[in-house]
């Protein structure tokens, strides 16, 4: 398949001082990793890129209808972990996943499980907007057509409209559904990608820095949208912006050097971080 450039492979440049080096040995995650109503249950997840670990020993629950933000410096493994949840790591040459990842009690790395089914239940929005070079309508309709979700053209039209409405894009594009999706602005493209992900009616939506390529206004719209989507979907969002994590999420997980350092309610993480590394990061001492 495509070239084996792992997304979070760059060497973390954050750890310079001896003081931090000493704190590297994060053995246990601080905070409550469990959730009373988990969608995902992940235990001791380790991802190997060749013989280098991308993520080590991560255990966390992801609760139903919550927004979980994953933060951390570049190369900390948060995107890698995110890509485990819908097995997009499968496409990376030499990537291996250990540990257990369960979606509603079902092992998602079970060889008997159809990966297509998993990805239909767990949608994904990528860092860079990646609409298909097709019409806006066809972008949204691609997933439903693929899975035969609608019986008639009218059904499909309704589904496309509903998805675009949920993604807060309908009013901007309703008169030009047959124009190419690639002709939209960056923020619109990203909302189109969200509409496309919603159209297949997933339970979980994974977002990999969805606003990092957007301007502040488009970012604000996406954040607003995430807040609305929470009613119906579980959302896991990777972000570099701590403000964004604080604004949109209920729980926050802090990753560092491939390990999950601290998990907790967002308000607590940002006001009373318990781990020294978390505190250093959110107070801006590095990262």
């Amino acid at each position, binding site marked *: *398949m*495509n*070239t*084996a450039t792992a997304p979070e492979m760059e060497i973390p440049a954050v750890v310079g001082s001896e003081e931090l080096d000493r704190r590297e040995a994060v053995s246990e995650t601080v905070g409550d990793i469990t959730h009373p109503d988990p969608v995902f249950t992940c235990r001791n997840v380790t991802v190997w890129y060749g013989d280098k670990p991308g993520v080590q020993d991560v255990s966390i629950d992801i609760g139903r209808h919550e927004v979980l933000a994953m933060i951390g410096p570049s190369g900390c493994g948060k995107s890698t972990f995110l890509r485990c949840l*819908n097995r*997009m790591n499968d*496409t990376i*040459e030499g990537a291996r996943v250990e540990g257990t990842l369960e979606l509603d009690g079902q092992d998602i790395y079970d060889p008997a499980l159809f990966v*297509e*089914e998993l*990805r*239909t239940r767990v*949608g*994904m929005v*990528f860092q*860079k907007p*990646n*609409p*298909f*070079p097709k019409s806006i309508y066809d972008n949204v309709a*691609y*997933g439903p057509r*693929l*899975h035969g979700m609608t019986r008639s053209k009218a059904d499909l039209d309704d589904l496309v409209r509903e998805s675009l409405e949920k993604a807060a894009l309908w009013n901007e594009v309703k008169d030009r559904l047959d124009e190419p999706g*690639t002709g939209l602005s960056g923020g619109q493209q990203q909302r189109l*990608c969200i509409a*496309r*992900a919603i159209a*297949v009616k997933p339970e979980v939506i994974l977002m990999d820095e969805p606003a990092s390529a957007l301007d502040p206004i488009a970012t604000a719209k996406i954040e607003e949208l995430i807040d609305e989507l929470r009613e119906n979907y579980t959302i896991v969002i990777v972000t570099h912006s701590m403000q964004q994590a604080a604004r949109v999420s209920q729980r926050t997980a802090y990753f560092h050097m491939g390990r999950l350092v601290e998990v907790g309610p967002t308000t607590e993480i940002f006001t009373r971080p318990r781990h020294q590394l978390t505190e250093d990061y959110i107070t801006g001492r590095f990262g």
Partner: protein
Amino acid sequence: MNNADDAMDAISSPVPARLQRLRRNIRRRRRAERRFRIYGVVAVTIGLVFVLFLFANIVAKGWSAFLLTHVQLDVHFDSATVDPEGDRSPQSLARGDYAKLVKTALRERFPQVRKRRDKRALYKLVSSAAPYVLRDRLLEHPEWIGRTLPVWVPASDDVDLWMKGQVASADVRLDEKQRAWLSALIEQGRVEKRWNPFFFSRGDSRQPEVAGIGAAVAGSFFTLLVTLLLSFPIGVAAAVYLEEFAPKNRLTDLIEVNINNLAAVPSIVFGLLGLAAFIQFFGVPRSTPLVGGLVLALMTLPTIIVAGRAALQAVPPSIRDAALALGASRMQAVTHHVLPLSLSGILTGTIIGMARALGETAPLLMIGMVAFIVDIPRGPLDPATVLPVQIYLWADAAERAYVEKSSAAIMVLLAFLLLMNLAAILLRRRFEQRWQ
């Protein structure tokens, strides 16, 4: 440029040494840049001059082959001569003695010619293919039987060359008498250079005046058809598999290196391979477009695979990710998105490969497509030759009259190649996808 330098000097009378050094340096660099640009212009000019010279030379030599000298004869379609059975059926008309019609017409035009030798010289003014022309015309118009009509028939190649002024006086093969008869015909307005109907419609011939590229064009068509039908699906499938599905390991690396090497193998080697494998081992009939197409397909495959892989690589991985993340299988991601997006690149590579195959001669010499083909092949199993081989054959022929034929055939071949390259360019323009 020099003015700018002078101006710079003018404003810079008292300049520190450091700046002066810097300016000297900049001036030197600009001079080097200027020199380099001149080299480029000279190189391009030389190239263009060569190409123009080549084209001009070929066109100057070849354009006259599209015209052919014709002689007008008053032919009496004597029913006993053209219709031996007397029933006017095509079978009967086909067996008529049309050479006699031509000879009679010539004798009647020049009643003063009596001697046998002179008569024979007179008959040589018109092509020995003239009777066939008469036969074909009569088969089209059976109502002409019994009538006397003026008919244009092709002149012989010697007359044609003479009329076109393409022979040095030492090489003129017309004697005094023949030239006198010819002048008489010209005075009566009975000699004309007209559109050469044989050049595009007929196969090769021992009579240069009626030799054509029809058979070669048909042969090229069937050969390329076989090549395309084989190399396009196999090449695209191989490219898709190698690029999208094959694991990256030693074996696939080795395959990749070998495909790239294969693209550089001299074409005659493919001809030898075709001879040994297809003809001698599999028993494919020699001299046919089928075996030619097989050999050219081998030669074109690496080109298509390499171009196809490059086109597939140009599709950003984010498109694959988008499809996969929606629950598409890898195959669906490829067929729904990656392949359509890379198709223009693949087609461009295919056309360029086909253009190369169209111009290929050497491997076809090895598999017997260098034959003298008179009949136009009707399918890939008829013996055939191809355009470049026809050019090679004519360029090799002793008769002076084939020179213009080969130049004209080159013009046709170049026209086809230009058309194909144009198609490739248009295709690329039309479907080029710009990724942000």
